[in-house]
């Protein structure tokens, strides 16, 4: 009987989470094996690699990789590890290179990964097969609409099947561009949070926390002419209605009626009077291209999407790609990028970036308070052995549609996580 970390009783309306999941190094080691080595993990966006030879190096699922566009123009992922004695073959953060050169003994690889040169290769026997010594790759590499993922699991289903209904929500992002091309903007936000990585999953979609954690952001919005009325309907905590939606395979999203403005294309006073006309044109373009209903869907709803286990796409005040990875049970490293349509005007781009910073990021008016809240959780959990369970039953009795401010979607995550951890 595998161990379970949740008490899940829908009949009684009870859902409890064992706080050990945020504290234990042993559980973290198991997560590496049972979650991060089993799932599709986000690597990067095709727009980061514009020309052949463009590369970025980063860690994905804890593995140093080179995300590169090879000479044939194909996007590729190599392990950043020399086949000879294991050194990183590329120390640069990003650049353009035909070849990667291992500084230790001078082995040279093409940007397609092939081993091109071994200094003094006459010293090897016939058993040495240079053709077999290309840079290794993760077991699987695939993309959905320019979002590239890798998996260390050779038996995993195709990415599109894995993403399930989450593809609908990625489509809603991509459709913001008239040419269906989004690009990652320059400037990466990389910051650590002193909390277990799964707390960021919860926080990214937990709309229950908004009024309390982000009181100062709501105040800022009010000061900027965005009136945030208290909700009229029973059970709501936000001024507009929002739902929590299960997407399969542990993925889920919030799906909220917009009140906070959207760069494509819902004007709020914060953007300034000058922006009104251009944003009306952007909306008209959406209507012309997608029809009224779909255009409203793209422009007038906000969505915080979680792709299990560690990719978040916040499609709200701006579009954020955010991923995070544990560095110990009590710490994570977060990386966040802004995403925008390639054809965006200079003013629209500036508005998008400005809107991003009103809420998100280490200097934003909201993210620092999220970081604080998660760190307070991690600190409080030091009592876990004597105060063992987190109470996560909010909204459990609700029939039919589930609210963004309940914990339905958080339970989706935990049930899926618990199932994967229970598997051998």
């Amino acid at each position: 009987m595998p161990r379970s970390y949740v008490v899940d009783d829908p009949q009684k309306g009870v859902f409890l989470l064992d706080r050990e999941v945020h504290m234990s190094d042993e559980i973290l080691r198991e997560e590496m094996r049972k979650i991060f080595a089993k799932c599709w993990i986000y690597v990067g966006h095709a727009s980061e690699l514009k020309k052949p030879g463009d590369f970025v190096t980063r860690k994905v699922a804890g593995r140093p990789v080179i995300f590169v566009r090879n000479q044939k123009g194909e996007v590729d992922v190599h392990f950043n590890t020399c086949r000879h004695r294991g050194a990183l073959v590329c120390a640069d953060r990003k650049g353009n290179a035909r070849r990667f050169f291992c500084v230790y003994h001078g082995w040279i690889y093409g940007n397609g990964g092939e081993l091109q040169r071994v200094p003094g290769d006459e010293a090897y026997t016939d058993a040495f097969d240079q053709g077999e010594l290309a840079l290794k790759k993760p077991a699987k590499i695939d993309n959905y609409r320019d979002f590239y993922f890798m998996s260390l699991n050779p038996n995993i289903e195709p990415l599109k099947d894995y993403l399930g209904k989450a593809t609908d929500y990625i489509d809603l992002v991509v459709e913001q561009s008239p040419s269906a091309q989004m690009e990652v903007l320059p400037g990466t936000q990389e910051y650590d949070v002193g909390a277990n990585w799964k707390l960021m999953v919860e926080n990214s979609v937990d709309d229950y926390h908004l009024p309390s954690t982000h009181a100062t952001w709501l105040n800022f919005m009010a000061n900027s002419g965005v009136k945030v009325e208290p909700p009229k309907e029973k059970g709501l905590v936000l001024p507009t209605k929002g739902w929590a939606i299960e997407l399969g395979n542990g993925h889920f999203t919030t799906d909220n009626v917009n009140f906070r403005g959207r760069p494509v294309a819902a004007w709020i006073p914060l953007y300034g009077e000058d922006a009104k006309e251009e944003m009306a044109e952007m909306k008209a373009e959406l209507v012309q291209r997608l029809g009224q209903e779909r255009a409203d869907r793209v422009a007038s709803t906000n969505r915080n999407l979680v792709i299990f286990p560690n990719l978040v796409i916040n499609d709200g005040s701006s579009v954020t790609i955010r991923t995070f990875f544990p560095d110990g049970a009590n710490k994570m490293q977060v990386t966040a990028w802004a995403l925008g349509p390639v054809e965006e005007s200079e003013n629209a781009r500036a508005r998008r970036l400005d809107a991003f910073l009103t809420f998100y990021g280490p200097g934003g008016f909201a993210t620092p308070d999220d970081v604080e809240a998660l760190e307070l959780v991690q600190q409080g959990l030091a009592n876990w052995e004597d105060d063992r369970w987190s109470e996560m039953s909010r909204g459990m009795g609700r029939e039919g549609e589930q609210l963004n401010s309940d914990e339905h979607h958080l339970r989706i995550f935990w049930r899926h996580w618990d199932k994967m951890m229970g598997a051998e």
Partner: protein
Amino acid sequence: MSQKVTRAEVEDFLFHEAALLDEWHLDEWQKLLTDDAHYLIPPNDDLDGDYRKSLFIIADDRERIRQRIIRALDPNCHAEHPKSRTQRLVGNVRILSQDGDNVEVAANYICYRYRRYERIGQYVGNYRYKLVRRAASFLIKEKKIVIQANELGQLGSVSIIL
């Protein structure tokens, strides 16, 4: 022709500014700004970027600075409640150029940030100021802050005014 600005004058101003920030006299600090002031922290991987094209850590205009201070002083600003204790050292002050009343200044800084239960935050980098001479002192037209680290990393957030 304006009189040539001396480094001592600039240092007096920067040290005064540093003291206001360390002491959380943010409303006093605001009085040092011009009406069109900017407060900028570029991303660690695009230090020379333009905030209209690149995702900065902070890119505030004057109104946003005002809002930032309202937020920072609000007890509901959880990231700064209780408030960080900070101590900064400003040095290597250089006057880069002077054009009439407009003076460009570079300086280095170390800012230590202390909070209960947390690691010491050590923000290290350089300031680039656009100052405007006013009466016996200066106003800040732009303060651009480079955090000299490959990534923000364990510094986490920038919820103080750096």
